[in-house]
C-alpha cells in the first residue's frame, strides 16, 4: 500500500491509522541515500557469507526448534534473525524475546 492510499483511509481519531500515517511521514523523510546505505549493508553481508535466503530460512527453523527445547515459552514467530553490518564487523544477530515460563 502506498503512503497516499494510507493517508486517504486515515480516520481523525483512528489510533492505528494515525500511527501508520506518522510512520509513513517518517519514512518519506528517509532519503534515497539512506535507503541505499541500508540496502547495501544488508546485501553485502549476505554476499560475504554466501548464504542463500533459503538457507537462512532453514537456519531460523532449526534455531527456533533448539530454543524451544530450552525455553518452551518462547514464541517461534517472535524470533528475529538478521545478518548485519555494524561499524566494520559483520554479525549474525538473533533477537529472542523471552516470556515468563508457566509453572
Amino acid at each position, binding site marked *: 500500500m502506498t503512503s497516499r492510499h494510507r493517508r486517504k483511509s486515515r480516520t481523525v481519531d483512528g489510533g492505528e491509522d494515525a500511527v501508520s500515517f506518522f510512520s509513513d511521514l517518517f519514512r518519506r523523510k528517509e532519503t534515497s541515500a539512506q535507503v541505499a546505505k541500508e540496502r*547495501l549493508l544488508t546485501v553485502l553481508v549476505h*554476499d560475504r557469507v554466501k548464504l542463500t535466503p533459503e538457507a537462512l530460512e532453514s537456519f531460523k527453523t532449526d534455531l527456533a526448534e533448539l530454543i524451544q527445547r530450552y525455553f518452551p515459552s518462547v514464541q517461534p514467530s517472535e524470533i528475529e534473525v538478521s545478518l548485519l553490518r555494524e561499524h566494520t564487523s559483520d554479525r549474525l544477530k538473533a533477537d529472542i524475546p523471552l516470556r515468563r515460563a508457566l509453572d
Partner: protein
Amino acid sequence: MARVITVTSGKGGVGKTTTTANLGTALAIQGARVVVIDADIGLRNLDVVMGLENRIVYDLVDVVEGRARLRQSLIKDKRVPELYLLPAAQTRDKDAVSSDDMIDLTNQLRQEYDFVLIDCPAGIETGFKNAIAGADEILIVTTPEVSAVRDADRVVGLVEAAEKGPPRLIINRLNPRLVAKGEMLSMDEVVEILALEPIGVVPEDEHIVSSTNRGEAAVFNQSSQAGRAFHNIARRLNGEHVPLLEPTEQNGVFDRLFGGLFGRRART
C-alpha cells in the same frame, strides 16, 4: 623499483580506464617514470582515452607471444616525457595471456620505471585475475551507487584472498549537489560501507567527456575538478599528505569564482 598498481572495480563503466589514464599522466607530470598497461584484452580502450591510438604497432599479446620485445611495444606519450602505454590486443582469445605472463611482464618493467599502472577489465574472471597477478597494490574504483559498491565489495574479497593487502578506494563521479540533497551516497557513507581506506574522491565532471573526446587526460585541464582530484590522488600515492575532504557544492562554486584569485583549490 616500480610499484605495480592495478586499477579495478568489478562493475564496468565506473571509471577504471579514465582513472588509469589520468593517474598515470599525473604521476608522470609530477616527475615519475610511468608505464600504463591496458589489460582489457579484446576491448582496447586506454589508447583512445590517452590519444595514442594511431601510434600502436605492437600490443600486450605480441609481447607475451614473443613477436615483439617489450621495449619496442611501449608507446611514448605525446606530451609527457617518461609516460608509456602498453596497449591491449584486440584478439578475441581471452586466454592469450596468463597470470604468469603478467608477473613476468611487470617484473621486467619494475627495473626501469617508478610506477606501472594496470587498467583491469570489468568482471572477476580470468582477465581480472591476470590483471592483479603482478600487482603490489590495488586501487578499487567505485561510483556512489548500490550496484557499483556491491561489486566493489566482491572484488575486495578476491583481492584479499589473493593476498594483495588491503586495497584503497577511489570514489568516482560523486555529485556533491545530489549528496547534499540526500539523493546520493556520500564519500563517508561509501567508505563506511566498504570499510576501505579512501585515496581519493573524483567528482562528476563534464571535462572528462571533452578530454576523452580529444584524447587528452583531464589532468592537463586546469579548470577540471576531476583533473585536480586525480593530481591529488597521484600525490597521495607518492606518500604526500593531501587532506581528503568530502567535496561540497560550495567549494566547487567557490573554486570556480575565486580559485584563481586566491590560489585555493578544492581538495577532492
